[in-house]
């Protein structure tokens, strides 16, 4: 019996995540995740800030796709304060959030392949495509990762026609890249050997353990908040939810590939439907200019979005002051780790790494 610390400094724990692993030979017979190495008490920081300023901190939760976090938080506060979002802004939000989903998914697949031992090739192919989207983010939001783009009842900057043309071009090119990517990966015997029937998670366990996102859908549970809550204007788009068969690592990997395809569909529809108009409600402009004058009515709201990692929830309690009384983030990265030990038991060490990779955590969100 050998006890090994994976992390907090380890090449493939995706940050400063740490798990203590008990090994018997190469087999795992015990695994305990240890959290908190990146803990910065996000919630307390937020409770001392005006509502609009918290948006900048939500970027730093899941720093791979800040826009989904922005979306979730904006949605929650809008629910709390009863704000309306103009039509064009709704479309822009969907476009940006879906682009963020693509960014996240291809990055995850790339990193997972790196965990499998592919020497950076899939990762760099993925990053090549990600780069185009990040360039677009830079042009639109001003920053590549820490976008800080959404504001209450709208977005901060408009998508110009040039931006839209760039996105359109990107959508046209993306399937070719996916084809290439799949030719490199999905039928690869080594990858199939490594991923199939590894880290199986049954649908019931996943539901009970509150697993959400692609991990849940890979286990065959049809639950996508975009379809269930129909937040924003997701009810206007025609897209499908890919479901896995077995709930193993391969399914999680492939469900993500399919979700990218669905996201492309949504983007395509959004780009054709997007109307002209305001990008921010005139009434809410003052929130942007004077954040401390924005005082939502006393009450509470729980808003959630389908972030690429799973259900990202924000629980905000207002006491009528400029700062929230209570602000809580339901982090999918954290809760999806509940079943890590169960999935890893009896597998090899190498599998634990890819199981962790397939759950897709970002430490900024896990530890908050």
């Amino acid at each position, binding site marked *: 019996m050998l006890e090994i610390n994976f992390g907090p400094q380890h090449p493939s724990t995706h940050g400063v995540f740490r798990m203590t692993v008990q090994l018997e030979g190469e087999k795992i017979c015990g695994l305990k995740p240890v959290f908190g190495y990146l803990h910065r008490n996000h919630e307390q920081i937020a409770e001392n800030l005006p509502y*609009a300023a918290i948006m*900048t*901190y939500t970027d730093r939760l899941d720093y791979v796709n800040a826009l989904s976090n922005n979306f979730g938080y904006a949605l929650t506060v809008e629910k709390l304060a009863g704000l309306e979002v103009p039509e064009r802004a709704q479309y822009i939000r969907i476009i940006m959030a879906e682009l963020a989903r693509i960014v996240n998914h291809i990055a995850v697949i790339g990193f997972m392949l790196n965990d499998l031992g592919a020497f950076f090739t899939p990762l760099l192919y993925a990053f090549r495509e990600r780069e185009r989207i990040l360039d677009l983010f830079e042009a639109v939001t001003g920053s590549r990762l820490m976008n800080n783009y959404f504001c209450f009842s709208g977005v901060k900057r408009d998508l110009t026609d040039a931006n839209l043309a760039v996105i359109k071009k990107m959508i046209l090119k993306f399937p070719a890249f996916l084809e290439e990517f799949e030719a490199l990966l999905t*039928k690869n*015997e080594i990858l*199939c050997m490594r991923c199939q029937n590894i880290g199986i998670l049954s649908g019931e366990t996943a539901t009970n353990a509150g697993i959400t996102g692609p991990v849940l859908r890979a286990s065959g549970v049809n639950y996508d908040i975009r379809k269930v809550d129909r937040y924003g204007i997701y009810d206007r788009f025609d897209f499908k939810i890919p479901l896995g068969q077995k709930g193993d690592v391969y399914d999680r990997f492939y469900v993500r590939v399919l979700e990218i395809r669905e996201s492309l569909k949504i983007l395509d529809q959004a780009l054709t439907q997007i109307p002209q108009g305001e990008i921010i409600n005139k009434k809410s*402009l003052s929130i942007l*200019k004077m*954040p401390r004058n924005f005082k939502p009515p006393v009450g509470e709201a729980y808003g959630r979005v389908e972030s690429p990692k799973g259900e990202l929830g924000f629980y905000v309690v207002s006491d009528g002051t400029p700062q929230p009384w209570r602000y809580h983030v339901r982090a999918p990265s954290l809760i999806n780790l509940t079943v890590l030990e169960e999935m890893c038991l009896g597998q090899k060490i190498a599998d634990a790494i890819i199981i962790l990779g397939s759950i897709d955590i970002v430490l900024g969100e896990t530890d908050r």
Partner: protein
Amino acid sequence: MTLFGWGVLKGMGVTFKNFLTSYFRKPDEGGIFTVQYPEEREGTAENYRNFPFLVYDGAPEKIRCVACGICERECPPKCIHIEMELDAAGKPARKPAVFDIDYGLCMNCGMCEEVCPFDSIFMDHAFEVAAPERQIGLVRHKKELLKSNEYFREIRPALASAIDQKRKAVEEKKKAAAQPASSQSSGGTGSL
């Protein structure tokens, strides 16, 4: 049943194709994607934001900032420090005597730009800000933060021209207002 090992070979085919295309294709079509940084540079988008800077019109003395302290209060990581300049009589001169930004703390969120009612603080495009020492080297004082409106126009033409027009309109309005009701200064309220 597909041939065993076919997937592996197909993968090798993909990498080989990329190997070949890296020699004679353009970056967008599967060529080399690297930007050779110090020599080649990608142009930054107009909206790109890095660290804040202060705008002056014409000469550095004509600074737009009136040291109202809104950005100081709203800055989420609290990296701005402003002290009002006092004139001989000890009255506030509506000008900052000290304006420090700790680049080590700043997180490029752009809140200061959003809240500033005087269009004086904006996010810069310069990203090569390195200093040998964290405590002192990264704190920028007023002198280093001040940049001309021409520079602003150069890096963010659309926004700068919009703001120039707005300021002009306000100025003219002020002038028009000042002529009948002579010498009634109304301050530089250029907010939306």
